Every structure is written in structure tokens, then in C-alpha cells.
């Protein structure tokens, strides 16, 4: 059997990105999956994006990943969320046709030279001298390889649960992977147990839309991808309804049958995407919860009930559905269920998503204790990139918390203890005004290009747009809006104060009550001519820049201030056990997470500022003793991809 540079196990949202990235970076890559008919399957909601998650997908796209492009190809509805709120929380969300999504991803895989897909059950990792040497399949095939990316989703010893029934399965109807867990444990990795769940599906023709709010898509949808606009097509609507007292009564009456109560689910489930059982238990005072009814695709009438996730017995599931307004006559097509699976607590991974104890072994996606297609794709991309860099012998690619949501995601995973599946939120990013949906390409395309995942033309397009934003900003800084009678009448009409003298247009953009178009209407003809016609995305960026200038500057200053601490490297040989003057808990935590910088150390839960001071002093002493300069993380990462660190804005 011929060897590969990189083998990826699992062809879900993490595995596909990992395999594509590694192959595109020139590695001979194999993608091994239990079932070739289920590549890139969306086993839960038929959607990509949303607040926090959408930013991840944009970042994946800006780095040359596939998820954004694939979503744009398979969409049945696209919508920009939070348009009335601040730019940091604006995000795109798309409903997709699940089957088309799979087929588009398969095509992307098929068209990538150097990438083979293989059907089989990954059974054993071959490790020699703490280094990956290959993968063995249950059918006996051996795949020697230099790097291995595990992206097994919910399949490791997966077990699905409905009511008091349970059965070994990775997803409903599919056999789990039963051998890999033991092999990982033998290699010295610890495994935990998590749980996730999916709601029932119903026949879309049996709902009553008149009793729900119709949620259409945007008229002229912008897509996730920076590189092409989505094709225009007629969009499908979603429907919004709410549970009511009747629904809650049915759940409450049957809570004793819930796997959460009966203990037939032992793994920890997501607090942030709770089942309806859990919502009723935890929020008994709430009199309603939203339920979004979403199409599963254009080629099916099946609809997904976001908000009614449950693994209660099927008869109860039907009662819950029928008690909800608009769903009184809904016909159940697929019951909801919970799935419990082994996960790899990610404190055992480095920021490159490589296992501390086994070089060449990378892990991504739900296996690392996350939930969501977007979180999976982001990790898959990073793991695939780092597997390829590892094979080449190059330093790893690591994004910082102030550069990308991907940086926040991975930093959180490897420095914090997960007690439930991790999901991205904008609130997790301290620099969210810098990490916006609209500037993902400006932030990350230079990395994508340096890694070989984007073409020179793609980068040029991004740079051209950035220059256009700068140029137009300059024009607007110079363009004076006069306090003429006409202009002041227009301002008053828009609910804004009149001008005494004249003011630069850019300054007027600070006024929250004025839209970009409003201000443009006040320009004189010369300035209008100077400005020319602007791409809507350029206009958005200028408006955000104007309105949030102060905050953005403050965040940038904050980053600069923290950088010296953040970037101080802790040598990998550091013996945390010998640190004196810190608590025993801190010592244990440090030894367990093995932070690589002071910044990481400071984010480990249970590590206090005083522990950090002790560590800082200790590092200082080590440095003066050794007389060596300790490189900062930024330099390492930049060396790996040979680009300067780009600052947002």
C-alpha cells in the first residue's frame, strides 16, 4: 500500500476542510470515512452561519477553505442577521439544501489533485517513538503516513438515545467506530464523554404558516464567499412560532422519561443549545421559547424544528409538536434523538491542534468537544494546514485572539477545561469590533495566500478593495457638507441636528441616526464625482470605520499594550512542578495545559494574576540565566507563513 503525507479520518465538516487544505498545500492526502455516501452530511440543522459562527465561516473562506463557497452553492435562503445592531454582531446565516451541500463538497474533493477518498473504519493509530507513523483500518489495510488528522465527529463509541431506548450508532442508522478510542487511549490520550441532540423533522406541508411569522431571505443576498457571489435563486422561507403553556405542560408531564433525568445519557450536553426538556427544567418561569421551522432542502418537504430538540420518547415528541401553535397537525417524519460519544479533551492539544504527546497527530471538530459545522470547519482547516506544515518541517500556523475568531476558538479550546460542548459566541471574543464579518478577508487573506490556499489574484482583489476603502475614506474626510438650508432641512427630516457651519462628511457618518446613503445625499456634486460609485461592501466598511473609530482605536491600543505579556514564550521544557509561590491548583493546571505563552497561561481557569506574576518573574530569571532571547509567538507564526502580521483596520 502506498503511503500518504497526510491521512484524515472522518469526512464531515472538519475532515473535508482538513483534507482539502492539506492536499492543496501539496501533500499526498487520503480522506478515510466510514461511509462514502455520507460525505459532508449535515446531520443536525440545515444551516450554516449565524452570530459568531458566521464569522468563523467567513474566516475559513478568507483563508482559502471550502465551507463558505460550498454554502453559497447550496443555499436556499440567505439572511444578514442583526442589521439593526452593531457591526460586531452582524452575521450571515444561510439555510442550505443538505443533499446539494454534500454533492458540492464531494465535487470539491474530487477535483483536488493529490487527494484520495477511502471508505473504511479507522481502527488504530500507529505510533512509534511518540510520533505518528500510520493508520490501520479495520479491514486490514495500512496507510503509512507522516501526519494524521482525526475528525471523527460523534462516531467514537457513539450511542444514540431516545427515551429509555439506546443503540450503538454514530448517527441514526449508522454503525459507530468502536476500535479507535482504545487505540488513542493506548497512545496516552485521555477521552471524555459528551452528548448532543437533534430535533424531530416534520412534513412541511402539514404546518400552518398562517399561525407563524414568515421569515424570508434577503432580497439581494451577499454570500459567505469572498471570491464569488451566490447565484440568484428563488429562496425558501423559514417560519417562526413559539412554544406555549400547553407545550411546556406536555414536556413537564413527561420529564421523568427524559434521558437527561433517567440517566440514560451520561455525557454532558450543550448548555447553549439545550433540548426543550432542559429548557423547561432550567427556565420554569419562561412562558415561551422560539421554534424556527426550517426547510431541509429544496428537494424535500422535510422541515427542521430548531428549538424543539429532544430525546424524549417518540409519542411524547409528537405531543410536544402538536401542542405548539402552527404545528397542531404536523406529521412527524424523523424522530429527534440524542447521541453520546467519546471526545478528546482539547487541553491535550497545542494551538496547532497537535497532540502534546504524539507528534504528527492532529485533532479537529466535534471530537475536540465542540458543536457546530462552523466550529468544525475552522478547526479542520487549521489542523489540515498544520498537518501540511508539519510534514514540510515548517513552523505551525497559529492565529491569535486579536486576529480571528478562529484564534479565539482554538485558544479557548486548548487553555480551558470544557465541561460541555463548546460553541462560538461573539461574547467570547474580547476584540470583536476588530473581528468582523465584513473585514475577514483583510484580516486573513494574506495568510491564505502565503499558505498557498489562495491565488495571487484573490489576494490582489482583497488588497484592491482595502485600497478603495482607504481612498474613499480620505475623500469623505475632505468632503465638507455645508450647513445650507437644503442640507439642514434634509438633516432635520432625518431626525438629526442641523449644521451650523460645514463639517466633513466622514464626521457626519458618526451620527448613528444617519445611514451611509443619507450622508452621501448631502455631498455636493464635485465630491460625489470624486467618490465615484462605491461597492456596497466598501460603503459598509467606511460606515463602520466612521461610527466605531474610537472603540476600534481603543481595542488596538489594548492589544498593543498586552502584547508583551501575551507573547512572552514559556519554554516547552519548563518544569511547572518546580514553581514555588503559586497554589497547588495552579501548578497542576499549568502542568496539564502546558501553556506556550504567558497570555495562554493567564486564560487558564484557576490561574490568578498573582500566579502569572510569579511565573513572569521566574521566566525573567531563567532568561537572564540562559542569556537567550525568547521569541514571541507572533514571530513564530509569521515565520511559518512568511507574512507580516496584519492589523485589522
Amino acid at each position: 500500500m502506498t503511503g500518504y503525507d497526510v491521512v484524515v479520518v472522518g469526512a464531515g465538516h472538519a475532515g473535508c476542510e482538513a483534507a482539502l487544505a492539506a492536499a492543496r498545500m501539496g501533500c499526498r492526502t487520503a480522506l478515510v470515512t466510514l461511509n462514502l455516501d455520507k460525505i459532508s452530511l449535515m446531520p443536525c440543522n440545515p444551516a450554516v452561519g449565524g452570530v459568531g459562527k458566521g464569522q468563523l465561516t467567513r474566516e475559513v473562506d478568507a483563508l482559502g477553505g471550502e465551507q463558505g463557497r460550498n454554502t453559497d452553492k447550496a443555499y436556499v435562503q440567505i439572511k444578514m442577521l442583526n442589521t439593526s445592531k452593531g457591526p460586531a454582531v452582524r452575521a450571515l446565516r444561510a439555510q442550505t439544501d443538505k443533499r446539494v451541500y454534500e454533492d458540492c463538497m464531494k465535487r470539491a474533493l474530487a477535483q483536488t489533485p493529490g487527494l484520495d477518498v477511502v471508505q473504511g473504519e479507522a481502527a488504530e493509530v500507529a505510533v512509534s517513538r511518540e510520533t505518528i507513523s500510520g493508520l490501520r483500518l479495520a479491514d486490514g489495510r495500512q496507510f503509512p503516513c507522516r501526519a494524521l488528522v482525526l475528525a471523527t465527529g460523534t462516531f467514537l463509541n457513539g450511542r444514540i438515545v431516545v427515551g429509555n431506548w439506546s443503540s450503538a450508532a454514530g448517527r441514526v442508522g449508522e454503525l459507530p467506530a468502536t476500535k479507535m478510542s482504545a487505540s488513542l487511549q493506548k497512545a496516552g490520550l485521555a477521552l471524555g464523554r459528551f452528548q448532543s441532540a437533534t430535533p424531530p423533522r416534520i412534513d412541511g406541508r402539514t404546518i400552518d404558516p398562517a399561525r407563524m411569522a414568515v421569515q424570508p431571505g434577503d432580497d439581494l443576498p451577499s454570500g459567505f464567499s469572498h471570491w464569488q457571489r451566490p447565484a440568484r435563486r428563488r429562496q425558501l422561507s423559514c417560519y417562526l412560532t413559539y412554544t406555549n403553556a400547553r407545550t411546556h405542560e406536555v414536556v413537564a408531564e413527561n420529564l421523568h422519561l427524559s434521558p437527561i433525568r433517567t440517566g440514560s445519557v451520561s455525557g454532558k450536553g450543550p448548555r447553549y443549545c439545550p433540548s426543550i426538556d432542559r429548557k423547561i427544567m432550567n427556565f420554569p418561569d419562561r412562558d415561551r421559547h422560539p421554534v424556527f421551522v426550517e426547510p431541509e432542502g429544496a428537494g424535500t418537504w422535510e422541515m427542521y424544528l430548531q428549538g424543539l430538540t429532544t430525546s424524549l420518547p417518540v409519542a411524547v415528541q409528537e405531543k410536544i409538536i402538536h401542542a405548539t401553535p402552527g404545528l397542531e397537525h404536523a406529521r412527524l417524519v424523523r424522530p429527534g434523538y440524542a447521541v453520546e460519544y467519546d471526545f478528546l479533551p482539547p487541553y491535550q492539544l497545542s494551538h496547532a491542534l497537535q497532540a502534546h504527546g504524539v507528534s504528527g497527530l492532529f485533532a479537529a471538530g466535534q471530537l475536540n468537544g465542540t458543536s457546530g459545522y462552523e466550529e468544525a470547519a475552522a478547526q479542520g482547516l487549521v489542523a489540515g494546514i498544520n498537518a501540511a506544515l508539519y510534514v514540510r518541517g515548517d513552523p505551525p500556523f497559529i492565529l491569535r485572539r486579536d486576529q480571528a475568531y478562529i484564534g479565539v476558538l482554538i485558544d479557548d479550546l486548548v487553555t480551558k477545561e470544557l465541561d460541555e460542548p463548546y460553541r462560538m459566541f461573539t461574547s467570547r471574543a474580547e476584540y470583536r469590533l476588530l473581528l468582523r464579518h465584513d473585514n475577514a478577508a483583510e484580516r486573513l487573506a494574506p495568510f491564505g495566500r502565503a499558505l498557498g490556499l489562495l491565488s495571487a489574484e484573490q489576494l490582489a482583489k482583497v488588497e484592491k478593495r482595502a485600497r478603495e476603502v482607504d481612498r474613499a475614506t480620505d475623500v469623505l474626510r475632505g468632503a465638507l457638507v455645508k450647513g445650507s438650508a437644503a442640507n439642514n432641512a434634509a438633516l432635520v427630516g432625518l431626525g438629526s441636528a442641523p449644521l451650523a457651519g460645514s463639517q466633513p462628511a466622514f464626521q457626519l457618518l458618526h451620527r448613528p441616526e444617519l445611514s451611509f446613503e443619507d450622508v452621501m445625499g448631502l455631498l455636493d456634486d464635485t465630491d460625489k464625482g470624486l467618490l465615484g460609485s462605491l461597492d456596497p461592501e466598501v460603503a459598509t466598511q467606511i460606515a463602520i470605520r466612521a461610527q466605531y473609530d474610537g472603540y476600534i482605536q481603543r481595542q488596538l491600543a489594548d492589544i498593543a499594550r498586552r502584547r508583551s505579556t501575551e507573547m512572552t514564550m514559556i519554554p516547552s521544557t519548563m518544569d511547572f512542578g518546580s514553581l514555588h509561590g503559586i497554589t497547588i491548583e495552579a501548578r497542576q493546571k499549568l502542568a496539564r495545559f502546558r501553556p506556550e505563552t504567558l497570555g495562554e497561561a493567564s486564560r487558564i481557569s484557576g490561574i490568578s494574576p498573582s500566579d502569572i506574576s510569579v511565573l513572569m518573574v521566574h521566566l525573567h530569571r531563567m532568561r537572564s540565566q540562559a542569556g537567550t532571547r525568547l521569541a514571541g509567538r507572533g514571530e513564530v507564526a509569521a515565520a511559518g507563513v512568511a507574512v507580516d502580521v496584519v492589523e485589522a483596520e
Partner: protein
Amino acid sequence: MNGSYDDSYDVVVVGGGVSGTAAAAACAQAGKRALLLSSSLDVTGLPSYGPVVGAAVGVVRRELAALPASIRGSWGPELLCDERSGLVVMDPRNVSLRLKWALENMPGLDLRQATVVAVEWKFGRGRVGGGIEVFGALKEVFRARACVLAPGLGLRGSIRMGEQELSGGRYGEVPADELCDQLEVAGVALTQRSLLVGAVLWTPTRLLGLAKGRLSRAEDDAGSVALGVDEIGESDLEADLAGDPWVGEVKKALGGDVEPRALAGLVGDCLREKSEEGGASRLAGGAGSVGEDGADGACGRRLSGGRGPVPDLALIPPPGPSRRVAFLNRKGQGLVPTGQALDEWYLAGGLEIDRLTRIGFAVSRLPYVVNSCGIAAESDRPAMGERVWVTGRCRGANTYWESVKDGASVGRQVVALLQETTLR
């Protein structure tokens, strides 16, 4: 139905594979309320053992017309043939997508995901007062006047693939062991020879790589990824291929009289019929008479007086290329395209794999052998009592085509039985 969910059916079909879908369609087309149960709706109707239909061109063309409309409309447009060898092939994935959509849109037919663990026929076996109860693993109960069993190779299915032995009728899927146990224990309607061990199926190897070979070659020529097989025009496909060095390599590797073949369609009447029905797909892909009842109007259709017209396949422009080339000799041996999105090829007729992997093909799926229990049923008689019927692989159908025909035929027989039965 007045929009209310009535859980009592005329017929419950257990198993959503090739024969189960045909049986359900036949029942629904005759105006019966039918329920199709499948343990995984994602693979409804999936012909999962490869792209070769298993009947000669003439036979398929002749028999296609006799199938229920939704079955004909799902298989027909996917069936391509090589006139010289007589082989009929299709893309399994596309057949499955079309079947699921067509069945969803059949008035009187409901689809539901459920793993059936038991089938019980209440109140004896007579023609009066009989009733069937089908039990799901999640304690669901479905009631009907008759039942068709179409479990394929799922009854105590076990697979041997390389060194691996695992349960399942299809690789990676959970087998229907509980149902098998129950049928055996129930005994009542099973004759002694009803359960036979011995339905054995062998799936050939699948390979990846023709488009990839071409893509990487194109990359050498032009410095960027350019074309795949799909981009070659159909008319001069064979002429194009004749001068292609990569194709020459494939021919040499396959040896003998294997030639690249442009596959011809069998689409004719099926396509005409579809356009007459007026495609009311849920999305406007640009063309077609996608009426006002697209997105929003579609919902609630059943509430406001029955289901609408049978819509056309509603996929957003079908993904992937329409692959139209195979490498075959006169005996039908060679490489047949399957899984067009993934660029997979199926090795028909026991040719040597080594010679193909040497020129860049990679094995995507190993061949495997399935052993499972079958249910003995005399050709056109019910197997277990009057109201439980059996169809497809589990009673000996060997090819997709036999399964489709058998499913449709059993469906019609069930309808006939129900019609002569007076009592509901």
C-alpha cells in the same frame, strides 16, 4: 384527511430501498394510503451496490413503461446504456434523490424514518377483520390493513470486507436483526422454509480517479486546473477520447477490447412526461414553470385541501457533471462511472485492479460480501398470511431491475387484495 394526522394506513412498507420504494409507489398510485418506513431516509431508494442496473437495454426499455409513474420518472432519466454491450447504468445517488422527492410528492404516501423491530398481524389471517401492527424500535406503532416487507439484505445482515467482519446489510449501516428475530419467533405465518440463510451478495471494487488524472494533466499543460470529463461535449465525446493519452493509458491498463464509450440515454418518454406534468419545484433554478406555489404557498397545501400537483425534481441545478463515458468491452466488462459528484468508478467484470492503481486510480471502496437471511416466498403469493407480503432482495431478487419490478408487482397485488377485501 382534513389535514388531521391519521395514523392508520392501507399499507405499510417496511424498508425504503429499491423494492420498497417501488411497492409503496404502486400502492399509492392505486389510491391507497401507504406509509414507507426506512431506518435512514437519507438513503431512500439508494441502489447502493453499484451503478449497473442488471437487465439488458431492450428489457429495461420495454419494462420501464409498466412501472408506476413516480418510479419510472425517477429511474428513467438516470438510465444510460451502452448499446454495444447492452449494459444499463445509472448514478445511484441521483436515482435516490429523485425517488425520495417523487415519493414525498405522491398523494396518499407518507415517508417516515423508523427502525422496524416487529410486524404483527392481529385477528387471524382471514380476509375479514384483519389488521397489521408494525412496531418501531422507539415503540412507535403503525397500523395498516396490509404490510410489505422489503428489508433487503438487512435481516441479520453481516458483511465481510477484507479482514473486517461487521453486522449490517449495507456497509456502515445498522442491520435489522430484531425484526429478523421477531419474524422467526413469531413463526405463525412463517413456513419452515421461510427463513433461509443464504442471500449472498458481492459488491465489486470502486475506484477513484479518471477526472483527477485528467485534472492533474490539464494542470501540467495550462498551469491551472481546467477541465474534467464532464466538460467534453457529448456529440464528439468518443472522437475526443480517442486521441486522449490518458484514455490510452486506461485502455492499455484494462487490456483487450475495452473501448471508451459515450453512454446513450434512455430518457425519451420519461422526460416528455415530466415536462407535461409541469415542474412545480420549490426553487426557481431559472427555467421551468415554477409557479406561484413555490416557496411560501407550498406550505399548508395539504391543510388547504389536499396536496398539489406532483412537482418535478426540485434540485437546484443538479450538482456535478453528467458523466457520460465508460470503458467497456463487448461483454460489459470494464470501468463504469458511478457517484458522479465523487468521481467514482465501478469495476465491472473482474478485471485486474493493480493495473489501474498503477496509473493513478485509487481504491475508494473495497469489495465486500454480504450474508443475510432471506424470506422464502413463492413467486406471486404472500409469504406470511394474506396480509404480509415480501419483496426484493430478501426473497431472492438478484438485481436492481428485478427488485424494482418485484416491488411494483407486489404493490399491485396488495392493492388487488385490498380491493377485494370488503372490510376496512
